[in-house]
């Protein structure tokens, strides 16, 4: 076997918490990377995957420090180098593709200046030559307008393009190792394919070794040769991509794979009564943003949306960023009053604006937001967060309120003692449960779920979906479930609406989604979801005309 390009031996990284306590984040990790090999680090948030990847560049984030072990990169002992020596190898030997290219590009500089900055810092080549090389890379990464795209500012190109531009930025100095830190997580599925393809082809062409950090097994399977599964700062399992997918040996890996299998949704049936109207009926709904002229806002987002949600059923709304999914939830809930159309909840007409709705009308439909972190007041205890809607809607105070808070916590499977804690002391999954309990406090008949599992780890998200199903049976709820993730929607919804640019392009039963979708955009969406199969991306064929028409790359 050839000498490995990178060898990490018994790496230990520690951090000091705000309270001054020392925590070990990485607990003795060892692995090798051969020249030209792509190794994936996979695990949930907090497993230390990004910390390990950054340490290969000799970089630790504020508060962290390498406490033991060695990292060897080529002929360099990264752990023993000074900060100045590490700066020498960054960009030339090892480079970095960030998670969010939109945040990693300096907003006040033109793209080209940033892409060729590595060449300027390390004085690799004259500017003109560096620019030519960058344009060549732009072409290799299938970027449009390769000649001129460099003269734009970062806010003038799309997210998928920025992500590929950041790869060009990483490759300009001909590094031997490139670190990809969740580079496609923030992208839409149809965009992700193009970006993954571009990454893979340039890496193969240059025989560059890579570290690919991700939480998504299906994405990793397309690009990695070997997979390292991490949990709690320790390696759980190492194997080739094929091995890990086909015959995982470690229970945690098996759990990860299981969370992937769509659990078919079994519709719940309530004691039906003919006189009950549909729980949610939306007709000719139009909404938008901006100054209102001629009774229509400047930016029209929703265009004549019509659908009906029957009692006890769940309706999924899928589409990519900018399709108007969240605007739909905001328009139904009254946060963004629609300028035309009607919303009927439980057979009663809902006035458009929140201010015009009575408490009773507000109570019926509750919304749960995507990010529990920002939706929960960080200065209030969980008890106060849940108590407020109880007082507002039901006039509860004192003991009765406290008892109901404990009941609500029990509904979302959390211990009663948690009511004295602050949101910042809870995990991501716990926070999302509190977020859900707050909606339940109002005793709604309809809950609008806006991407509520998108920010969670796979295993945690699966548990939230199970909880939603149990709650539905117990409380006879109906959900409007907004998501960009098809498998989540399949797991909980009876019917699905596919949205594109503010319009519903197709409505069909969820379990037939992958098979029966007929609208070209739905087909494109379905075919773009990565599968747990190492050959999926290579075998994938999409109609280029369709892609050009619908994918916002």
């Amino acid at each position, binding site marked *: 076997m050839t000498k490995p390009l990178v060898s990490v031996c018994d790496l230990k990284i520690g951090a000091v918490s705000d309270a001054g306590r020392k925590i070990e984040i990485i607990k003795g990790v060892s692995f090798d990377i051969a020249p030209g090999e792509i190794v994936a680090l996979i695990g949930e948030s907090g497993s230390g995957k990004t910390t390990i990847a950054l340490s290969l560049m000799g970089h630790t984030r504020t508060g962290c420090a390498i406490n033991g072990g060695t990292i060897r990169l080529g002929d360099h002992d990264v752990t023993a180098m000074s900060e100045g020596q590490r700066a020498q190898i960054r960009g030339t030997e090892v480079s970095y593709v960030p998670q*969010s290219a939109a945040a*990693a590009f300096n*907003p*006040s500089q033109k793209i080209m200046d940033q892409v060729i900055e590595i060449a300027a*810092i390390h004085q690799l080549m004259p500017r003109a030559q560096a620019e030519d090389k960058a344009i060549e890379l732009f072409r290799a990464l299938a970027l449009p307008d390769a000649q001129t795209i460099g003269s734009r500012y970062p806010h003038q190109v799309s997210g998928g393009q920025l992500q590929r531009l950041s790869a060009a930025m990483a490759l300009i100095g001909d590094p031997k190792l490139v670190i990809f830190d969740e580079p496609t997580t923030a992208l839409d599925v149809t965009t992700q394919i193009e970006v993954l393809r571009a990454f893979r082809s340039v890496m193969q062409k240059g025989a560059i070794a890579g570290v690919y950090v991700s939480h998504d097994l299906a994405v990793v399977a397309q690009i990695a040769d070997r997979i390292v599964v991490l949990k709690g700062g320790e390696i759980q399992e190492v194997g080739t991509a094929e091995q890990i997918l086909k015959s995982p040996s470690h229970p945690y890996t098996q759990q990860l794979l299981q969370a992937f299998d769509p659990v078919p949704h079994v519709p719940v049936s309530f004691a039906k009564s003919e006189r009950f109207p549909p729980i949610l009926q939306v007709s000719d709904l139009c909404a938008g943003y901006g100054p209102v002229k001629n009774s229509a806002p400047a930016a029209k987002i929703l265009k004549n949306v019509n659908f009906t949600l029957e009692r006890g059923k769940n309706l999924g709304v899928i589409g990519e960023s900018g399709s108007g999914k969240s605007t739909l939830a905001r328009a139904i809930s009254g946060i963004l009053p629609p300028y035309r159309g009607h919303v009927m909840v439980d057979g009663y007409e809902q006035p458009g604006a929140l201010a015009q709705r009575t408490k009773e009308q507000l109570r019926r439909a509750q919304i749960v937001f995507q990010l529990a972190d920002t939706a929960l007041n960080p200065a209030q205890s969980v008890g106060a967060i849940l108590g407020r809607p109880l007082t507002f809607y039901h006039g509860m105070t004192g003991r009765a309120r406290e008892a109901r808070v404990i009941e609500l916590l029990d509904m979302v499977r959390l211990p009663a003692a948690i009511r004295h804690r602050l949101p910042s002391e809870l995990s991501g999954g716990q926070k999302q449960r509190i977020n859900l309990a707050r909606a339940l406090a109002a005793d709604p008949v309809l809950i609008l779920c806006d991407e509520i599992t998108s920010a969670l780890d796979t295993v945690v998200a699966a548990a939230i979906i199970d909880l939603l199903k149990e709650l539905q049976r117990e409380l006879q709820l109906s959900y409007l479930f907004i998501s960009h993730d098809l498998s989540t929607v399949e797991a909980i919804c009876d019917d699905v609406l596919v949205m594109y640019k503010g319009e519903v392009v197709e409505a069909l039963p969820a379990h037939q989604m992958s098979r029966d979708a007929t609208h070209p955009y739905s087909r494109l969406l379905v075919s773009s979801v990565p599968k747990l199969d190492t050959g999926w991306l290579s075998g994938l064929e999409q109609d280029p005309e369709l892609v050009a028409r619908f994918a916002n790359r």
Partner: protein
Amino acid sequence: MILSRMPWFLIAQRLGIALLTLIVVSFAVFFATELLPGDVAEILLGQAATPEAVAGLRDAMGLDQPALSRFIGWLIGLLGGDFGTSYVNNMPVAELIGGRLVNSLKLAGLTTLLAVPVALTLGISAAMWRNSIFDRIISMLTISVISVPEFMVATLSVLIFAVWLDWLPALSFGVNVDSWSAILRAYAMPVITLGFVVSAQMIRMTRAAVIETINTPYVEMALLKGASRSRMVLRHALPNALGPIANAVALSLSYLVGGVIIVETIFNYPGVAKLMLDAVSTRDLPLIQSCAMIFCVSYLLLITLADLVAILSNPRLR
């Protein structure tokens, strides 16, 4: 396209707001001075004046006209460069202020030339080596300067440099200024005292603005491209912190024109602030109003300038 028209629109909007503010402020200044207790005519004529004499003087000075028409007359006069006539000594206000304003601007200009580069350098380097000994010393010094009132600094420096060491003249005006070294010596103390006060604030705000941008992913990205610490801060963090820094500088400098009363008094420096103080004690309304307007205009000018820098340094608006 929209993108290229955007900044001009924003700049025009910003200038429009400044103009509107100026009109509102002039209104406030005029009527606030109207509310001052005491009657000019009575004060001028003294206690022995007969009511007829007072009424005659009021009539002659136009004080019996309604306040609003006097305001409009005053505003029109201002636009034409006519600041009115002093009640007390019948000299044109413009003439009274003229020399004083030059003095004040000289003091402010010298302080700016000294304080801004020093403050920005210290603020940026404190941010660059955050949590180092250097940063801590700077933080400690700025805190102590902010907490010590400037009359303390001024009095102490007179005591030390003029009385004990006898290096510098205690009064900066009236001494011989026939050579460069004499000018430097005359201005040294007031400039240093003012410089201390205004730069402490600038250092702290510059440091905070730069640190905020250092914590962004794109600055970390620059580090991971192999950029040195100074390149990372000067090329990537600083350009994005220009807006807040310009505002911090403008706020600190606006203090120089109006807020220097104490320093001007202690060093017996004949600037506008001292003139206004004298005008208040003699109820010289036209003079008070004009001084107040000068302070407002200089303040507005600085703040507007800072906002224009912020607009122009942002490529999203440019």
